[in-house]
C-alpha cells in the first residue's frame, strides 16, 4: 500500500522534473522546433489514472502529451529525441511533441485536432470488445475538447455499444486563454453531460493523485468486466502558459493570485503531506528522486542532441504502406 502511494509520488516527481528541465532547454536553446504543451501542475491526473492500467490497455492523449506518455511508461529517450526532431525519436521526428507513440507500453498515440482522438479511443476500445479481449482504451482530453461535437458523438456510441473506454477529462478551467464560463453554461458540468449521454461519470479532485487513482481503478475494472464506458472529470490547473515553457501571470486572462492558489495545491506537495505520517522519510526520498530524474533527463537531452536528424532522402517514406521504412 505504502509502496503504491510512494510509487505514485515518485512518478509525479519524475514527470515534474523532466518537464521543468525540458522547459528550460526549450526556452534557452530554441532547438526543439515543435509546439510543446507542458503538464506542469497537472501530473496527478496522468499518474493516478494510468497507474490503474496495464501495457495491454491503450491510452490516447490530445496535445498535452508528455505526462500521459511518461505515466504510461513511454520511453524517455525516444521522447526527448522526438522533441529535438531526431530520427531516433519515437515518431522518427515526423510527429513532434504532439504526436507521440510507444506501442510497447500501450501509449497508442496523441493528436493536435481537438476532440478527434476521443473518437479514435472509442474505436480501439470497441475493437478490443468485439474481439472479446479484456483490454481497456483510455483517452485524455481537456475541458475545451468537450465542446467539440465529436465528444458527444463518441459518448453516445460508447454507451450504446458498451465500449470499454475511459474518458478522462482534465478540466483545468481554460481553453488557451478562454475561461470555462465563456464556453460552457453555468450550472453544467462535463460529468453531467456524460451521465445524460448514458456514460457513468464521477468528478474527482484532479490534484489528489490517490483519489484519482482510486476512481480510475474502479472505472478500468468496470470496463474490463464488460460494464461499459466511464468518464472521469478531474479538476486541475495548468501552471505555465498554454503552449511553451513560460509563465503567464502577466497576460491578464487569469490572475496571479489564482495561479498562486493552484500552485499552493501542488499535487506533489499534497501527496507528500498526506503520506508523511506513514512515510516519515518521504521528503528525503523526494529530494533523492528529484536528483535521479534530473540526471536522467539531462542525460537524455545530451544524448538526443548528439543524435542524427532524419535524412531528407527519406522524406516520403511512410506516407504510404507501399513506401516502406
Amino acid at each position: 500500500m505504502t509502496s503504491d502511494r510512494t510509487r505514485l509520488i515518485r512518478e509525479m516527481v519524475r514527470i515534474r522534473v523532466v518537464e521543468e528541465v525540458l522547459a528550460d532547454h526549450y526556452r534557452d536553446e530554441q532547438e526543439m522546433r515543435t509546439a510543446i504543451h507542458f503538464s506542469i501542475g497537472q501530473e496527478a491526473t496522468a499518474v493516478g489514472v494510468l497507474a490503474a492500467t496495464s501495457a495491454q490497455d491503450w491510452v490516447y492523449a490530445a496535445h498535452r502529451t508528455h505526462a500521459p506518455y511518461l505515466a504510461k511508461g513511454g520511453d524517455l529517450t525516444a521522447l526527448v529525441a522526438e522533441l529535438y526532431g531526431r530520427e531516433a525519436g519515437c515518431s522518427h521526428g515526423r510527429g513532434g511533441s504532439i504526436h507521440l507513440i510507444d506501442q510497447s507500453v500501450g501509449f497508442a498515440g496523441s493528436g493536435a485536432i481537438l476532440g478527434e482522438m476521443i473518437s479514435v479511443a472509442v474505436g480501439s476500445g470497441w475493437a478490443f470488445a468485439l474481439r472479446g479481449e479484456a483490454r481497456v482504451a483510455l483517452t485524455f482530453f481537456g475541458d475545451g475538447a468537450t465542446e467539440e461535437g465529436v465528444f458527444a458523438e463518441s459518448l453516445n456510441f460508447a454507451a450504446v455499444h458498451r465500449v470499454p473506454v475511459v474518458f478522462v477529462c482534465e478540466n483545468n478551467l481554460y481553453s488557451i486563454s478562454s475561461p470555462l464560463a465563456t464556453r460552457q453554461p453555468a450550472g453544467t458540468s462535463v460529468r453531467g453531460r456524460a451521465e445524460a449521454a448514458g456514460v457513468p461519470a464521477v468528478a474527482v479532485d484532479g490534484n489528489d493523485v490517490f483519489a484519482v487513482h482510486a476512481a480510475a481503478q474502479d472505472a478500468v475494472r468496470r470496463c474490463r468486466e464488460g460494464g461499459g464506458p466511464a468518464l472521469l472529470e478531474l479538476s486541475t490547473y495548468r501552471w505555465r502558459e498554454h503552449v511553451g515553457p513560460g509563465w503567464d501571470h502577466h497576460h491578464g486572462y487569469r490572475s496571479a493570485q489564482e495561479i498562486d492558489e493552484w500552485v499552493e495545491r501542488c499535487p506533489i506537495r499534497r501527496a507528500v503531506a498526506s503520506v508523511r505520517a506513514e512515510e516519515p522519510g518521504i521528503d528525503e526520498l523526494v529530494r533523492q528522486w528529484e536528483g535521479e530524474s534530473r540526471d536522467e533527463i539531462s542525460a537524455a537531452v545530451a544524448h538526443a542532441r548528439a543524435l542524427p536528424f532524419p535524412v531528407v532522402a527519406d522524406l516520403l517514406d511512410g506516407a504510404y504502406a507501399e513506401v516502406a521504412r
Partner: protein
Amino acid sequence: MTGEREQDVRALTYWQAISEATVQCMAADERVLVVGEGVDDFRGTYGTTKEAFQRFGPRRVVDVPNSENATAGIAVGAAVAGLRPVVVHTRADFLFLAMDALVNLAAKWRYMYGGDKGGAPVVTRGVVGRGWGQGATHSQSPHATFGHYAGLHVATPATPADAKGLLVAALTGDTPVVLIENRSLYSLEGEVPEAMTPVPFGVGRVARPGTDVTVVAASLMVHEALRAADQLATHGVSVEVVDVRSIRPLDDAIICESVARTGRLVVADTSWARYGFSAEVAAVVAENVPQALRAPVRRVTPPDCPSPVSWPLEEAFNAGATQIVRACLEVCEVSGPALPALEAVTAGFQGPY
C-alpha cells in the same frame, strides 16, 4: 478481366459486385466489418450490404448512430487496433462531416508516427446520388476533394468488375481508401470474376481504343464517353476512352501515352471543373506531353453552380454523352452534322431514392 478463365466470370450488376466483394472479404478475413447508418436494414444500402448482414449478422454489419465524424474516427481507432472497417455512406455528401477524421487522422496516421507503427486502413464508401432531383447537397462527387490529400487512396469504379476489384484491393491493402460510387451505376450489368481478385489502385484501363481523341473519364462518365464514342464512330471520329479507375494514385502513364498518340484530350467528370479531376488530368498532360496537344484541352463537367432539383435544369446540369460528343467534335475540328442528343445512361431509372 483478361486472364480470367471464362467460367470464372459472370454478369453481375454493380451493386451485386460490391455485395460480393464485401461478403467474400468478410468470409476471408474476420477482421472486416461493415459500419454505417442503416447498413443492416431491409434495403441494405441499395443491396450492397444486405447479404453481408444476412450472413454475418449485427456484430459485423453494424448500424450506427447518425454521427459521421465520430464514426469515421471510431473506424480509424478500430483499424489501428487491427480491424478492417468499411464505413458506408448513402450519400457521399455526408463525407464532409467525416472529412477531418479522414484527412487529419486516417490519411496522416502512418506518417505522423514515423511510418513504422502501422497505419489506419479504413475503407470509406460514399454513394453519389444523381438524378430524380437529389438536390444540391445530395448529389456531389467529392473524389477530388479527397484526392488532394497525401496518405489516402481514392477510387471511382466505373464497372461492376472494378467496383468489386477495387473494394477487394481496399480491404486487403494497408492504406486508407475512399471509394466514390455513383448510384446511377448500381443497376448496370457487367462481367465480374467470381474470385476475390483485387484491382490495383493507380492502374487505369483503356475502355475503348481510338486514334483521334482521348477522353479521360472517371466513374459514370466512362459510360457517357463510351456512348459518345459509338456515335462519333458513325461520323468517322475515332475516340479512345481511358477509365482511370482510381484518381489517387492516378495512372499518369496511361493518360499521357494515349494523348501522345491521339494529340487531343477531353476530360469528363461528374464533379466541377475548378480544382477537380478534370484539372489534374489536364495538368498531367501539360506537364508531360504538352507538345503532343494538337488542340486545346476540353473539360466536360457540370457548370459552375450547385445542382438544381427541377428536372430540365438537372438534365442540363449533369453533363453527359451529348456534351462529350460536342467537345470531341470541337477539338477534332469536325463540324459534323448536328447530332441527335443522346439519352443519358441513367434514363429510365425510376426514382425516388
